[in-house]
Structure formats: C-alpha cells, structure tokens
C-alpha cells in the first residue's frame, strides 16, 4: 500500500502543484534546518531549500518510495547539496543514487518529535570526541583525513569513531 508521501510524489509526477505544496508544508522545516546547520547563513539555506524542492518537482522519479523514507532522503540529499555548495564544487552524487533506509516513521510531527528525542539522546550519550568527529564529517563535510589533521588524532581512530557514532544512532531505534 502506498504511503501518503508516496501518493503525493506520485501526484507530483503528474504535475500536481498542490501535492508539491503539501510536501513543502511537511518537510520544508527539515530541509531548511539541515541546510542552515551546514551553511550557517539563512539566505544560502533558503537557496538550497528551493533547489532541493525544485529537483523533486523536476525529477520526482529520483525518489523511490518502495525503497526508502522521503524525509530521510530529503535530509540526506539536502546535506549533500549544502556541502557541495559550502565547498563550491559541482554536485557529486546523483540524487537518484541515494537510497535511505530509515527505521522510525517520520511522517507526522508527533513521530518526528519522538524520533528527535531519541536522536538527541543518542548524540548526548556519545563520547564527545566521537560525536565531534561525526558532526565534523557530516555537517562540515570534512574528510576523515581533514578531521585527523585538525584534531591531531590518528586516521584509523577517526574512521572508527565515525562508524561507531553512526551505529550508535542506529541502535537507538533498533536496540
């Protein structure tokens, strides 16, 4: 059975502007927040917000509703696009190559708030160096090599911290 998100994406495929408006109401805050966290500037974050939703309008088939969650997919492609913008480079990943498997249901504000509580709890429980490595890699777009240079820690330690941090987040929903 199609989820409401999948139904809206299907309507967008048919050129339905109202469906686009509904998805914007649902997920513009997620997209804008992620872009703002990466770029730190409201005007630039708004540009990424426009770009991400226009990409969905132009190419709705890039999102495969049978294999992932729309808010998760939007969050990841927004981060990738914002990092590209931060580093002033061309888009490196085809958005249709991004498949996001997210365990929690994020479709409603109550579900999203419950998930947020768990995510922030998991981040708060991480050792600070692990959380820092993870956030530098994700929100600042630094490579493991750049993080190692910046922190003076061994490269292997940084790789391990990043992976362990991601698995900690996953375990918050699949204990």
């Amino acid at each position, binding site marked *: 059975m199609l989820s409401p998100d999948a139904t809206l994406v299907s309507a967008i495929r048919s050129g339905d502007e109202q469906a686009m408006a509904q998805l914007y109401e649902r997920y513009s805050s997620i997209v804008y927040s992620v872009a703002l966290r990466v770029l730190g500037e409201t005007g630039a974050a708004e540009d990424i917000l*426009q770009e991400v939703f226009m990409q969905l309008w132009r190419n709705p088939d890039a999102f495969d509703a049978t294999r992932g969650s729309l808010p*998760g997919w939007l969050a990841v492609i927004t981060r990738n696009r914002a990092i590209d913008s931060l580093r002033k480079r*061309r888009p490196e990943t085809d958005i249709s190559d991004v498949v996001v498997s997210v365990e929690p249901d994020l479709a409603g504000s109550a579900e999203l708030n419950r998930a947020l509580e768990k995510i922030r709890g998991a981040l708060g429980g991480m050792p600070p160096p692990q959380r820092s490595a993870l956030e530098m890699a994700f929100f600042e777009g630094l490579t493991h090599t750049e993080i190692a240079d910046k922190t003076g820690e061994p490269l292997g330690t940084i790789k391990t911290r990043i992976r362990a941090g991601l698995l900690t987040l996953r375990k918050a929903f699949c204990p």
Partner: protein
Amino acid sequence: MSVHEQFAEDLSLYALGALRGQERLAVEKHLETCQDCRHELEQLQGDLALLALSASGPRPPLHSRERLMAAIAKEPRRATVRLVQRKPWWIALEWATAVAAVAMIVLLLRQNTDLRQRVAALEADSSAQQKQLLQAKELIATLTSADAVHFTLVAAKAPPQPQGKAIYLRSTGTLVFLASNMPELPPQKTYELWLIPTSGAPIPAGLFRPDSHGSAALIKPPLPTGVEAKTFAITVEPGTGSAAPTSTPIMVGT
C-alpha cells in the same frame, strides 16, 4: 552483520562522500556485486538521515513558500508515466552500458537511419534487446580495453589531430564522450570537459586523462537534466579539476 569487514569503515566514509580516487572506485566496484554491502549502505544513509534530523528546528521564512510555488508555476510539466521501477545505480549500470553502447554505435555508423530502425526494433523485442546488450558490452569492452589499438583516419599526409566526440541527450542529461590523439599532460594537470549552455556559466562535465595512445572516454558523467547545450569545450585544469574554467579552451565543439 554480514558486511565485509574490510569495507565496513570505508562504507561509512563512502556514504558521507568522503572517499576519493581509488578508495572510492574500490568501494563502488565492490557494491556492484555485494548485496549485503548495498543493504548496509542504505542503512548507513538512514543513520546519516537521523544525524541530519538532529538539526531540526528552524522554519524557513514565510516568503520561501511563495518563491517555490512561483518557480513551480513557471515550470508546468506534462504528466509523465512511470514505465519502469527505478533501480539503484549498480543495476542501472547495465542500462547505462546499453545507452552508452547505442551511442557508440551511432558514432561509428554516423547516426544512419538504419541504426535508428534497429534501436526501435530492439526496444520492441526483449530477446533482441538482450542480444544487443551483450553486443554492447563487447563493444564497450573493446573501446575501453587497454589492449585495444585505436586508429583515427585522416587525409593522407595530414598529421593526427586531437579529436573529441560528445553525444548528449538533454532530456536525461546523459553524455557519452570519446577523445583521441589527445596530447599527454603533466602529472598535476587534467583535461576537463565543459557543457556550454545556451545561457549561463559552463557546467563541468567530467575530468579525463588520455591513455598512452591518447584516447579517453567519459560515459554518463553527472550532469543536470534539461540543460540545452550550445556546445562542449575542453580546458586544461589543475589535477582535481575546477568548478569553472581557469584557462582558455583548447578544443571547442562545432
């Protein structure tokens, strides 16, 4: 977890877009054949989505919605019918191979009408399409093999000239590019192909370095869809490429 241990950490870095060069290619090659690692990559993208959501809170300014809806209204679309379920890139690779191979054949046979009829017939006949795919793979292997010998025929007594052929499909942003007789470059330099749109700045269309015979190919580099190309051009750039041309084009399409 059944993920291959030697790829466990690299998969996290790959999901973050932090791998470059050989490390990235090695992961992509492994993903082509390992379903467990593909599944793990999807899980890791989900973990990254959770991390992204930790930033949730700020709401966009109210005028953003009007700006988006106005932009959408300027781009009304015809309804499209989804004919096939989209597959991930490693499965789509076979399709890309077929598209690239068809483009190669078009190049080799000078886009003659006979080929168009053959393509149409192949689309209608799945068994014939399978046969065509096998032929296409052989053709790609021939074109990309290090052992293949390349000859460019020119007027007698004329010295070989650098040549590039770009075949571009605007609606999908698909590009196949072949080059021959390209001069060698210093190690710290690379060739960069540019899509020159009818309006706006040049769009990077891929980096390449010719092999020892001066040949190179770019198959389906990442490009936005729907951009109308005025032409293509090649510049020499620093080894990691540039977001905008930093030198005068050495070759331009006609």
